[in-house]
C-alpha cells in the first residue's frame, strides 16, 4: 500500500496502474463506498461486479476523476486524483478512454466524426491521417461500413461497438467500461466481450470493467472484485470466484433468487401488514 505522503512512489507503482486505498465516498451523509482497497495491474483486465446500486459505477467515476474521494486516495498512472487541478486532470484523462453505459455517442455527429472527435479536438494531425486512423479504429470493431451513418441509425450492439472504437481512438493506457453489456442480445454481448479483451491486449492497455453480467465477464477478465453495499466482499481470479463458497458470491454467480441478498425488502411481518395480528 502506498504511503499518502510520498509521491515518488509512482516509480514503484508503475506495475499497478490504478491503486485505491482506504477509500470512503458518499452522497450527502449517506456513505456509498466504505474502505475500498483495490489495485489494477498494468495490462490486466479487471471486473468490478455487484448488484445494481451497490456503488460500482460511483467507483468508476472516482477512478475517472469525475468524483472526488472524501477519505483515502485514488491513484491513476502514478498520480493522485485528490485535489488535482482541472488542467492536470484533463492532461491525465487524455491517457484514459471510457465507454459509457449506452455508448453515449454524440447524436449530432456521424459515426466517423464520433470516432475522430478526440483526434480533431486534441491533435493537429492532418485530415488524411485522421481519416486513416479513424477507419482503422472502425475496422477493428468491424464497422468500417457504417462510417457515414448517424448514431440514431445504429442498432444497440453497433452503437456499443462504435463507442468502443471511440474510447480507444487515442490508444489510451487505461480503458474504463461502464456496463458494456447492458441491454445487449447474446450475440452482440459475446462480440463486445471478445472485442474488449482483444483491444486490451492489442493496445497493451489496462481495462476496468464495471458490470453485473457474470457469465460473460468471467470468460474474459483476469481478476474480479465483488462489491456489495459499498464494501468489497470478495476478490480473485475467475477460477477462484467460480469455486467460491461465499454465500453472496454463490448467489450472485448462479443467479439465485434468495440468499444473503434477501428477496424481500426489510419490512414488518406479512401478518402485521395484513392486520392479522396487533403490532
Amino acid at each position: 500500500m502506498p504511503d499518502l505522503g510520498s509521491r515518488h512512489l509512482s516509480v514503484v507503482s508503475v506495475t499497478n496502474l490504478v491503486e485505491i486505498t482506504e477509500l470512503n465516498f458518499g452522497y450527502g451523509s449517506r456513505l456509498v463506498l466504505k474502505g475500498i482497497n483495490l489495485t489494477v495491474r498494468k495490462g490486466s483486465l479487471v471486473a468490478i461486479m455487484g448488484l445494481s446500486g451497490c456503488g460500482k459505477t460511483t467507483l468508476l467515476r472516482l477512478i475517472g476523476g469525475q468524483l472526488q474521494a472524501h477519505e483515502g486516495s485514488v491513484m491513476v498512472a502514478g498520480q493522485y486524483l485528490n485535489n488535482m487541478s482541472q488542467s492536470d486532470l484533463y492532461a491525465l484523462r487524455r491517457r484514459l478512454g471510457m465507454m459509457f453505459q449506452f455508448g453515449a455517442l454524440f447524436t449530432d455527429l456521424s459515426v466517423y466524426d464520433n470516432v475522430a472527435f478526440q483526434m480533431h479536438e486534441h491533435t493537429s494531425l492532418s485530415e488524411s491521417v485522421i481519416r486513416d486512423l479513424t477507419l482503422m479504429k472502425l475496422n477493428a470493431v468491424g464497422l468500417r461500413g457504417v462510417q457515414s451513418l448517424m448514431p440514431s441509425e445504429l442498432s444497440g450492439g453497433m452503437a456499443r461497438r462504435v463507442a468502443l472504437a471511440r474510447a480507444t481512438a487515442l490508444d489510451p493506457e487505461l480503458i474504463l467500461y461502464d456496463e458494456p453489456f447492458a441491454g445487449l442480445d447474446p450475440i452482440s454481448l459475446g462480440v463486445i466481450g471478445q472485442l474488449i479483451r482483444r483491444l486490451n491486449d492489442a493496445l497493451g492497455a489496462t481495462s476496468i470493467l464495471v458490470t453485473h453480467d457474470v457469465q460473460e465477464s468471467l470468460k474474459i477478465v483476469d481478476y474480479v472484485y465483488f462489491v456489495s453495499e459499498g464494501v468489497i466482499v470478495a476478490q480473485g481470479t475467475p477460477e477462484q470466484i467460480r469455486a467460491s463458497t461465499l454465500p453472496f458470491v454463490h448467489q450472485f454467480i448462479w443467479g439465485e433468487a434468495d440468499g444473503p441478498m434477501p428477496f424481500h425488502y426489510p419490512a414488518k411481518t406479512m401478518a402485521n401488514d395484513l392486520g392479522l395480528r396487533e403490532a
Partner: protein
Amino acid sequence: MVLESTLRNIRLVGDGTLKIVERIGATVVFLGLTLTQSATSFRRFDLVIREIFYAGVQSLIIILVSGLFVGMVLGLQGHETLQNYGSEQSVGVLVALSLVRELGPVVAALLFASRAGSAITAEIGLMKATEQLSAMEMMAINPMARVVAPRFWGGVISMPLLAMLFSAMGIIGGFLVAVVLIGVDDGAFWSQMQAAVDFRHDIANGIIKSLVFGIAVSAIATFEGYEASPTAEGVSGATTRTVVSSSLAILALDLVLTAFMLKGWS
C-alpha cells in the same frame, strides 16, 4: 390556527422568492462561466456557424411570417384609429416606431425563446441525460467550451439579425396594408416615417435591446439544459422553464431598458 396558516403562506412566499433569486443568480454565474470558456468558440468559429444555423436560420420562417402579420395588423389598427384624427398618413410613423422600438425586439425574442431557446435546452439536456456531456469530460474536453459556448454565441449573434428582419418585414406588412390596400399616400407614408424615426434613438436602441434579449435567452436556455436533471421528465421540465423564464426575462428587461433609453443614458 389562522395565525399558523398565515405564517405558513408567508413562509411559502419567502421560499419562492428565494428560489427565484437563487435561480437568477445561478444563471448569471453560468453566463460568466460561459464567457470565460468562449475562447474555443472564436478560435473555431465553424462551431458557432453551425449553431447560428440551428438557432437563427431555422427560426427565419416563423420570424418573417410573424413580422409580416404583426405589421399588417398594426397598419390596419393604426389606420382605423388615426383616421378619427384625420392623420391617417402618420400610420407609417406608428407602424415603424412601434416595431423598431418595441415589437421588433420583444416579439422576435419571444418567438426566438420558444423556437430556438427550447431547442437548445432540449438538445443540451438530452446530451446530459445520455451521458454525452460526461463522455466529453472524460475525453478531457470541457463541455462548457465545446457545447455550451458555441450555442450561446450562436443565439447572441442570431437574435439582433432576427429582430431587424422582424421589424423590416413588419414595416413592409404595414406598407402593404396602409398604402397598397387602403390607399394612404405613398410619399407621405415614407417621408413622415423618416422624419419621425431617429437612427440612434429608435433603431440603434432597438438593436441594443435585441442584443440584450439574445444574451438573456441564450444564457437561460443553455443554463436550463446544462442543469436539467438527466431524465426525460427533467429535460421536458427544463424546456418549459426555458420558455417561461425567457419570456419573463425579456419583458422585465424590456421595461428596464426602455426606462433607461427614454430617461437615462441617451
